[in-house]
């Protein structure tokens, strides 16, 4: 149980970081790394800022040659993702799938 203060004051700034809202989730988004084009749509739509874009290098065939190119990848922060599914709905290449979280 969290410590509570008089009048529902919380005297510790930034303490929301310690409150993992990811436990509210029933379904979780799973990113297909092969499909993700790094467009940042999910990042921008996520109401909880629970998606981070990370740099990666992929191999891609361009004009008959396999080249290494830089492309971003969406990574879900499951500590704060509440499983709303907006990212999956907005993804233009259907790279995010919502799956039931069974423990």
């Amino acid at each position: 149980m969290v410590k509570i203060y008089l009048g529902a004051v919380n005297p510790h700034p930034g303490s929301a970081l310690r409150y993992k809202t990811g436990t509210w989730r029933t379904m979780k988004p799973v990113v297909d790394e092969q499909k993700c084009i790094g467009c940042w749509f999910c990042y921008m739509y996520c109401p909880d800022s629970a998606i981070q874009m990370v740099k990666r290098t992929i191999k891609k065939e361009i004009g008959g040659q396999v080249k290494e190119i830089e492309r971003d990848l969406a990574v879900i922060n499951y500590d704060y993702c509440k499983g709303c599914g907006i990212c999956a709905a907005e993804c233009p290449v259907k790279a995010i799938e919502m799956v039931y979280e069974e423990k």
Partner: protein
Amino acid sequence: MEMKEIIRGNMATALAAKMARVDVVPAFPITPSTLFPEKISEYIANGELDAEMILVESEHSAISAAIGASAAGARVATATASQGLALMHEVLFIASAMRLPIVMAIGNRALSGPINIWADHSDTMAERDTGWMQFYAENNQEAFDLMLMAFRIAEDRRVLLPAMVGLDAFTLTHTMEPVDYPSQEEVDDFLPPYQPPYTLDVNRPMTFGSFATPESYMEFKWSHTRALEESPPVIDEIFEEYKKRFGREYKRVTGYMTEDADVIIVAMGSVSGTLREAVRQMRKDGIRVGAVKITTFRPFPFKEIVELCGGAKIVAIAERAISPGFAGPLFGEIAGAFINQPSRPLISDFIIGLGGRDVTLKDFREIASTALKEAEEGRVEPLVKWININPEEAPPGGE
């Protein structure tokens, strides 16, 4: 050094707020409380009071601004009545749950409809469960004293709760009466600056009025309720100190000729003086009647009511409010106070003076004689009697 002025009830509460050196007054005018913000703005304009007056667009905003100012550590007062208080309703719970010692003068007035601006306790009774303290003044002197003491009680670290000070519409709010008041120096000595436990401060950010899940909500409610339950000794202590400093005695509930009384009439607010005079006159006629005045409705003086009224044959409650479908709100409280007592008087309810209808000596005689008859018969039937009502002039009922 005592000074005296002949002033209206609203001026008495405004004077108390000025002498308390309030920092912020967010207010929206409403009859019969309008003179309070008028006086405050006059004090500020005259340079007699260094305070911020926030002119808001509604009472809902007035109490919301009061919360913000109080959370920032300001001493805050405001005033409202009736519909204005009702409009504040949802925010009142927040003010008390945040444990902010806001003091609010209420010109007790009937609620619409039909629209009516006169004395009635329905407005504050409807806010009974908001977790605020409630004091009721009998006259303008009490309005001043209770308003001043309300700051001290509300801000006490053992209490930290907001308080309403009720004064009956027009009977007190607009009536000129002599009011004694102490010097500013004496008030400053009695009421030091407010020391809040937490303050809104950009340099030290905090969350105020945060969210509580089912895991902690009950603990907040419990500690808030405990603060009210444990406030009576603090109130008594401050009443006692006030008496020592300024010579005027206050009690949460005051008895008059109750000791050998067969019937005790309980009332609140401005009718209490009329009631005592009625008791005095009836005593001359050999009627064993007593009076009880409730000053502190929240916290409710359960124990003291039982002590004062326990020896009577019947307790007659004369109240300026009705809970339609039940009885008057005070009836429920007093019946509750007696419920687990091994022996108890009969308890009879009388509805008086709604919407400013005059309450006279004759009305209290009628209440006493009706109650005594009920005591003789050993039953209270009907439970609720409306005094001075003209059923033949009432509009048709539910036919």
